[in-house]
C-alpha cells in the first residue's frame, strides 16, 4: 500500500453516536488569507451533540483557522458552517452565546485575580451579582484553583493558567466547547488533569471540539477524529475505525547494534509483509498478522545468527494513520516521544 494512499472518509452519519443531531456542521468551509495563503481549503464537518471530536494535524495544517471560523472570530472565504444549529455568518452573536472557547493562546488578563477574571467573564454572559460569585466559586473548585483564587493570574503556572482559561470558557455552561490545543506546552501531569476536566465537562452533555497535535490525546479523549493536513481533511472516523482501516500490525525489531541490511535480508519475504520502515535503531515491519509472524521472524534471525535487542508487536497507532494519510509523521509525536525519552532518562 502506498504511504500516501487516502483513507476513505466514512459517512459522518454512520459514525455519529446514537444518531444525535449535529452540534457543528460545516460544508465546503474555506479561508484564504491576503496574499493567497489557503489555510483551509474546503472542509466538511459533522460533529454530533455530546461528542468529543478531535481535530488532529501538524502546525499550520488549518486547525486554528477552522476553530476561529466556527467561533465567529474569522469569516470564511467560502462555504458555510452551523454551530448549535445557528449559521455562523448570519447570527454570530447567537452562536457566541452557545459556545465556550479556550484558544491556543491562553486568554487571561494578567492583572486580574482568578476570581475577578471569572466574575467578569460571568458578567459578559449576563450572569451578575451573587449568581456570578457562586458560579465563579463553583468553577474555581472544579478546576482546583480555589486556593489561588485571590492571586493575580500573572503569578499562575502554565497549567493553572490553562485550567483557569478552561473555566472561563465554561461560565455560561455552553452546549458547545471549542478547545484549541488545550494541552500544548503543558507537562504530562497537567495534560492528564486537563483531559480529566474535558471528560468531566463532556459527561455533562457538552459537545467538545478539540484540536490537537498529540496522537495520544486524540486517541485517549476523542469519540471521533478528523485529520487535517494542508487545509484539507484527509481522514475521519473513530480512532479505532481509522486504525483498523490500516489493516496491519507493526512488529518493531530493535536492532541493538545488529546490521540493518543483514537483518532485513534475514527476515526476507514474510507472508503478509506490506513494507519495512527503518526508524533510527529500529526496523518497523508492517504485517497483516503481527503476533502470528513473531515466531517465524525469530526463527529466521536465529538461523542467520543475528542477535537483536527486542521484538515487539503493536496495533497501528493514530500516528500510523497520519503517516498513511499524509506520507509523514506528525510533529506532536516527536514531542511526545521526546518527553517519553526524558521521563525514561529521569
Amino acid at each position, binding site marked *: 500500500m502506498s504511504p500516501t494512499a487516502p483513507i476513505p472518509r466514512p459517512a459522518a452519519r454512520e459514525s455519529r453516536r446514537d444518531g444525535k443531531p449535529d452540534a457543528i456542521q460545516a460544508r465546503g468551509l474555506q479561508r484564504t488569507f491576503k496574499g493567497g495563503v489557503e489555510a483551509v481549503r474546503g472542509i466538511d464537518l459533522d460533529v454530533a451533540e455530546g461528542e468529543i471530536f478531535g481535530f488532529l494535524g501538524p502546525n499550520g495544517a488549518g486547525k486554528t483557522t477552522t476553530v476561529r471560523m466556527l467561533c*465567529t*472570530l474569522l469569516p470564511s472565504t467560502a462555504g458555510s458552517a452551523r454551530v448549535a444549529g445557528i449559521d455562523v455568518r448570519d447570527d454570530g452573536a447567537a452562536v457566541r452565546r452557545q459556545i465556550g472557547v479556550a484558544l491556543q493562546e491562553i*486568554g*487571561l488578563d494578567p*492583572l486580574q485575580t482568578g476570581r475577578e477574571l471569572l466574575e*467578569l467573564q460571568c458578567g*459578559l*454572559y*449576563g450572569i451578575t451579582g451573587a449568581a456570578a460569585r457562586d458560579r465563579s466559586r463553583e468553577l474555581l473548585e472544579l478546576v482546583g484553583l480555589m486556593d489561588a483564587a485571590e492571586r493575580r493570574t500573572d503569578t499562575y503556572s502554565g497549567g493553572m493558567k490553562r485550567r483557569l482559561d478552561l473555566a472561563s470558557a465554561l461560565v455560561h455552561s455552553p452546549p458547545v466547547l471549542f478547545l484549541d490545543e488545550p494541552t500544548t506546552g503543558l507537562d504530562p501531569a497537567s495534560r492528564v488533569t486537563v483531559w480529566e476536566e474535558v471528560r468531566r465537562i463532556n459527561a455533562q452533555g457538552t459537545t467538545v471540539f478539540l484540536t490537537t497535535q498529540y496522537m495520544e490525546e486524540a486517541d485517549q479523549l476523542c469519540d471521533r477524529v478528523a485529520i487535517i493536513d494542508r487545509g484539507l481533511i484527509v481522514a475521519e472516523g473513530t480512532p479505532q475505525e481509522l486504525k483498523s482501516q490500516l489493516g496491519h500490525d507493526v512488529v518493531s525489531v530493535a536492532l541493538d547494534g545488529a546490521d540493518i541490511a543483514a537483518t532485513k535480508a534475514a527476515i526476507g519475504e514474510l507472508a503478509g509483509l506490506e513494507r519495512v520502515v527503518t526508524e533510527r535503531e529500529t526496523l518497523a515491519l508492517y504485517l497483516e498478522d503481527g503476533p502470528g509472524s513473531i515466531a517465524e521472524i525469530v526463527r529466521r534471525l536465529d538461523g542467520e545468527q543475528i542477535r537483536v535487542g527486542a521484538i515487539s508487536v503493536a496495533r497501528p497507532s493514530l500516528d500510523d494513520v497520519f503517516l498513511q494519510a499524509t506520507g509523514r509523521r506528525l510533529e506532536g509525536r516527536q514531542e511526545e516521544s521526546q518527553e517519553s525519552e526524558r521521563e525514561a532518562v529521569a
Partner: protein
Amino acid sequence: MTEVLLLGRRAVREVVRLPAATIPTLFIPLFFLAVNIGQISKTFPSTTPFLHGQGYVGFQLPVSLMFAVCTATSGLALVTEIDQGYFDKLLVAPIHRSSIIFGRLAADLVRGLAVATLVLLVALALGMEMRSGIAGALVLVVLAALWGVAYAGIGMLIALHTRNVQATNASFLIFFPLLFLTPNFVPFELLTPLMEALARANPVSYVIEGLRSLVLEGWVLHKLGICFGVILVTGLVLTWLSVRAIDGYDR
C-alpha cells in the same frame, strides 16, 4: 451598558494595579512645567499683559495638562491584550465590540481626572491662582480629562490597525507637533505669521486657549465653548473611527 461598566471597572483596576504605566505620564508634564517656568518666567513677569497679573505658571499649566492626559495608554493596553490573546476572549463573548472601546475610555477618564488634578495641585503649589475659582478648577480638570478621552482614540486606532506594540507606543509622538504648533509659550499674536497660521489651524490650540482662560481670565464663555466643541468633535470622530475599526476587526 452593563458590559461597558464591567470592562471599564476592569480597566480602572488595571490603572491602579499598574502604576508604572501612569507615573511616567506624570513625570513628563511636571518636568516640562518646571523647565518652562524656570527658563521663561523671568522673560515674562506677571506684569506681562497676556498673563493678566499672574506668573508664567498659569500660562503653562494647560500645556502640562495636555501632556499629562494625552497618552497612548489605552492603545497600549489594547494591543497588549491582542498580543496576549485576551482580546480574542472578549471578541468571542456575546457583547458589543464597541463596549471594549468604551470600557477603555472609561479608564482614560478616571486616569485623566487623577493626573489632571495632581498637575493642577502642583501648579497651585507653585503660586498659580484660579481666576474662575473652585468651580473653574473642577471644569479645568474635567475638560482636560475629556480631552484625554478624545485623544485616546488615536492610540486605539493605531493598535487595532497595526496590532503592534511599538507602532502603538510611537503614536504618542504624534502629539508633539500637535502640541508645539500651538500658542504654548506665547499667545497667537506674538507668533511669527507662519507659526500663527499653523497654530490657528490646529484644534489643540483652542483646547489650550479654553483651559488657559479658566486659569488667567475667569469664565470666558466663547473660549470655553470652542474648547468644549473641539473636544467633543475630536472625541466623536476618533471614537467613531475606533468603534468602526473594532467592528471590522478580522471581518
